[in-house]
């Protein structure tokens, strides 16, 4: 009894320590850095300023934030539209093929996502595989502008993030009781009604999880918009990397990061508020 109590306390202590060191402290440092006038080279600012934070109210930032939000929402929407049927299909295939299909989903993760984005570029570019094929077949005479635009960014982000939508959905839908489908059928439900009334409400928690798992990384990814996007495809993530890596403006980068973090915290809060009833139900 006391041993278990001790173990429990140790676990809680180590988890909270980890959370404090890896999450809370960096955020505090970042916040302090954004208040520093001397470029953020020291942990504790020598001269204080609010200028980096007030700069965030510039309409330019609003536009960039909106661009980030737009990319992330589109990516999440497309991931859900493709991922839901894919997860449903995964539950239907014969059980001996399931491990293979799941590994096919996971194997791309073994290589760096940056490398995979370059691979995607060779597919999409003007003389890339897709355009060559289309021109060879004679569907088009001029190469399609597949790369360096917003669509390319969304394709790249969907490609990178879609497993995060499929996996939580698959995990929950796999537990869906076949009897429910039969019961619904027995009571006169059409195929569409079975989906809309029996699968959809059941899968809502996983849909919420999937949205969170895709949306949050989509907001912070910067190399995909940088590599695949055009001049207009500027997002908060790429602004931060630009400020810190190119302009050596650590305080400005820190201020933008604070904005992004607060933005994401609000979204997580919104998500938990939406699913507050369901959490209790599942216990």
């Amino acid at each position, binding site marked *: 009894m006391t041993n278990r109590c001790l173990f429990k306390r140790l676990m809680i202590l180590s988890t909270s320590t980890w959370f404090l060191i890896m999450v809370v402290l960096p955020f505090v440092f970042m916040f302090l850095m954004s208040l520093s006038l001397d470029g953020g080279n020291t942990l504790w600012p020598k001269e204080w300023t609010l200028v980096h934070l007030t700069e965030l109210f510039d309409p330019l930032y609003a536009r960039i934030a909106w661009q980030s939000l737009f990319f992330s929402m589109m990516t999440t929407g497309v991931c859900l539209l493709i991922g839901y049927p894919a997860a449903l299909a995964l539950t239907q295939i014969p059980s001996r093929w399931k491990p293979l299909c799941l590994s096919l989903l996971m194997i791309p993760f073994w290589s760096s996502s940056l490398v995979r984005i370059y691979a995607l570029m060779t597919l999409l570019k003007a003389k890339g595989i897709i355009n060559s094929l289309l021109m060879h077949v004679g569907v088009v005479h001029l190469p399609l502008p597949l790369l360096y635009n917003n669509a390319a960014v969304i394709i790249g982000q969907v490609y990178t993030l879609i497993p995060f939508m499929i996996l939580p959905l698959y995990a929950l839908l796999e537990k869906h*009781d076949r*009897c*429910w489908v*039969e*019961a*619904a*059928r*027995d*009571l*006169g*439900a*059409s195929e569409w*009604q079975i989906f809309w*009334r*029996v699968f959809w*409400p*059941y899968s*809502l928690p996983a849909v919420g999880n999937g949205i969170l798992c895709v949306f949050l990384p989509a907001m912070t990814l910067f190399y995909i918009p940088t590599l695949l996007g055009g001049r207009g495809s500027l997002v908060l993530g790429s602004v931060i990397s630009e400020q810190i890596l190119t302009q050596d403006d650590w305080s400005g980068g820190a201020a933008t990061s604070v904005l992004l973090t607060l933005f994401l915290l609000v979204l997580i809060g919104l998500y938990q508020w939406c699913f507050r009833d369901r959490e209790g*139900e599942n216990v």
Partner: protein
Amino acid sequence: MKSMIQCRDLAWSPKGLFSLQATDFDIYSGEFLTLLGPSGCGKTSLLRLIGGFVQPDQGDILINGRCMNGVDASDRPVNMVFQNYALFPFMTVAENVGFALRCQGISSKEARPRVSALLAKVGLAGYEDCSPNELSGGQQQRVAIARALINEPSVLLLDEPMSALDYQLRQTLRRELKALQKTLGLTFVMVTHDQEEALSMSDRIVLMREGKIVQIDTPRGLYESPKSVYAAQFIGEANVFSTIVEEVHEDALSVKLGGTLSRVRKPANSDTPSCVHVIIRPEDFQAWSDDELDESTHYLPGCVESVTYKGSTVELQVRLDNGHLVRVMEFFDETDDTLEYKQGEKTYLSWHAGWEVVLADD
């Protein structure tokens, strides 16, 4: 009696693993029919065929005289109560019960009075906004029944409705379910592997074995005149003596039971069988000690091997003189209120002449 469901020469064998063969029977309007048999005998398959969840390879199912071949479960005038009830946990009780109405495009507001009326009928008034997970097993069963009844089906199909419940509750719910069927005046078709459940609830029982129907009869008919050794052994306890016929009389046969020559009834539909099975239920035997015997009665001598006291009865295992072990059940009553038997004691078994069942061995 009017036939509600007619099964004509049904056969079904999915993937060659299992087969339901040439099944042919009627279900009458307003009766409580039970499909009984051990697991794997095809009783659930038969129920699913009637429900329209699978289509037969051969034969027809008629419901209310209408042929149901190719008609899906969603379009049949029958509804199912599933084994684990298959209630939707993400809906309230009222949403579960009103599901069929919502699928027909009836708004939840319009459906509400009908749902509440039905819930009241099954004794769950006031539970509309509960989650099914908050209810007890018995209450969940009633929600499942109400949900299946909302479309006013001609027949209610029940797939082992008691199997998810504990023993005590099952006893009560048997009576309740039977009473509900009588008040609704509806045809119930129930699948069970529990012979006690089948005996106590059914108007008729369809006994099945390995994809075939063994016997269709009333509980009493099945218990008192089984048409096969299998039926006798599946329903209740039975002592079976398989023996050759020594002598044929006008209305009786002489056979050796436990090594003692005895007279038994002649099987009804067989003239002179050479071998017969004589079936005597444990409760039809009486065990006597040697100072209680009288001249006019026939006895099988044996030895008491074990005595089990069960409250209202005493159960004996008696080794007959030729080594055959039989079970005997004795009831306490006014004439015999002590029932003292000792292990190893010599005993003599008698039975009510004519209560034995004699089957010709084919």
